[in-house]
């Protein structure tokens, strides 16, 4: 057994071992094992309250699991924080868009936090996510869907390998959903990784999409 553990730890990408989470007296999930390599997407499904958001927060290191560990490139994420944070982008339910700042300012702050130099102009990214003409208005005047588009625009700018997204399709219109979906598929096909919670089926080839179903 120790032998196989060792070899597993040295694979690149994300590896999860024996993840268990208990909330109060309820076990949300138990002994979850999976791994994700470049060019794969993972969809986490389950009814409301089954721990989908919790598992994403554990994967980004925001919440500690009751048991188990998350490895990035073979190292526990706590020991590998800087490398992991540079390779990972998380968009949660609250997407971190400040309503008093304009979309442009929001993206500028996000770039400084991620320490990346954008390879395309911020205005160009906002145009891609369909926010042309809204660059300089405070985000408070934007709709929920438009704010989510700003947050997703952050993904286009980042050079992160792993995207962790909590219900990325919420509040988006049909056209927006299609656009984001093609963005995700593109990312995976170019060797990126995506983990998302959603009931929206992704148009990925067999073998590229893994699914985990959390049953209470």
């Amino acid at each position, binding site marked *: 057994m120790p032998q196989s553990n060792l070899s597993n730890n040295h694979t690149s990408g994300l590896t999860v071992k024996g993840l268990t989470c208990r909330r109060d007296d309820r076990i949300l999930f138990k002994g979850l094992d999976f791994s994700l390599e470049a060019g794969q997407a993972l969809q986490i499904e389950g009814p409301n309250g089954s721990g989908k958001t919790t598992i994403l927060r554990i994967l980004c290191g925001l919440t500690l699991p009751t048991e188990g560990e998350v490895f990035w490139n073979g190292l526990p994420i706590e020991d590998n924080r800087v490398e992991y944070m540079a390779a990972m982008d998380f968009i949660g339910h609250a997407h971190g868009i400040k309503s008093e700042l304009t979309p442009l300012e929001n993206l500028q702050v996000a770039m400084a*936090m991620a320490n990346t130099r954008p390879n395309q102009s911020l205005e160009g990214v906002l145009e891609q996510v369909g926010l042309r003409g809204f660059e300089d208005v405070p985000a408070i005047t934007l709709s929920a869907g438009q704010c989510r588009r700003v947050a997703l625009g952050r993904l286009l700018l980042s050079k992160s390998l792993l995207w962790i997204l909590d219900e990325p399709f919420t509040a988006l219109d049909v056209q927006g959903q299609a656009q984001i979906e093609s963005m995700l598929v593109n990312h995976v096909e170019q060797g990126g990784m995506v983990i998302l919670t959603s009931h929206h089926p992704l148009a990925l080839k067999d073998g590229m999409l893994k699914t985990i179903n959390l049953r209470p």
Partner: protein
Amino acid sequence: MSEASSYNAFYTILKRDLILAFRTRTEMVNPLLFFIIVISLFPLAVSPDPKVLQSLAPGVIWVAALLATLLSLDSMFRSDFDDGALEQMLLSVHPVSVLVLGKVLAHWLVTGIPLLILAPLLAVLMHMPSDSIPALMATLALGGPILSLVGAIGVALTVGLRRGGVLLSLLILPLYIPVLIFAANAVSNAAAGLAIAGQLYFLGALLALALTLTPVATAAALRISLR
């Protein structure tokens, strides 16, 4: 992570918070108004006699400044917690303590500096001798940042609680007491014509301690709050 890029992140957070403060000005004015109102009520309620006011002034001004700071603390991480920006800060590649320091500096610039500027005017209102006004400014300049830095730990611990206000005061006020004692004592001594170097050195030492240790503690507290 190179130092230059962390400095850049620090500067970005500082600038962001200053822009946010400027765009939500009314929130910023509240503690200042509180500071002015509390002090200006004293001559009405206690006595307009300059001698009485003079003896009360250092304590009253410092207590009011302390409570005004306490009042402003809650906003330090509240909105970032609510909209998820705090999560993004914790997931940044930069050390969280550096980002926290940027936020605390912004808080001090937005509340500490206006208190510092208003203090001499209110000192005149309280009939403080003009010799002791520089001492008041010096103690506020050294003590004000300590209040913001130490307060940040308390806010970080209570940000996840819906009604953290009372808990925050209970956590933070004991830590404010040494600052209050040294600062108010320095101002009283200055009014009496005594040396105040000792108290100022103590405040300076406390500031150095707070500046180096509290950002790390605040970062740890934020991690706990977001768990």
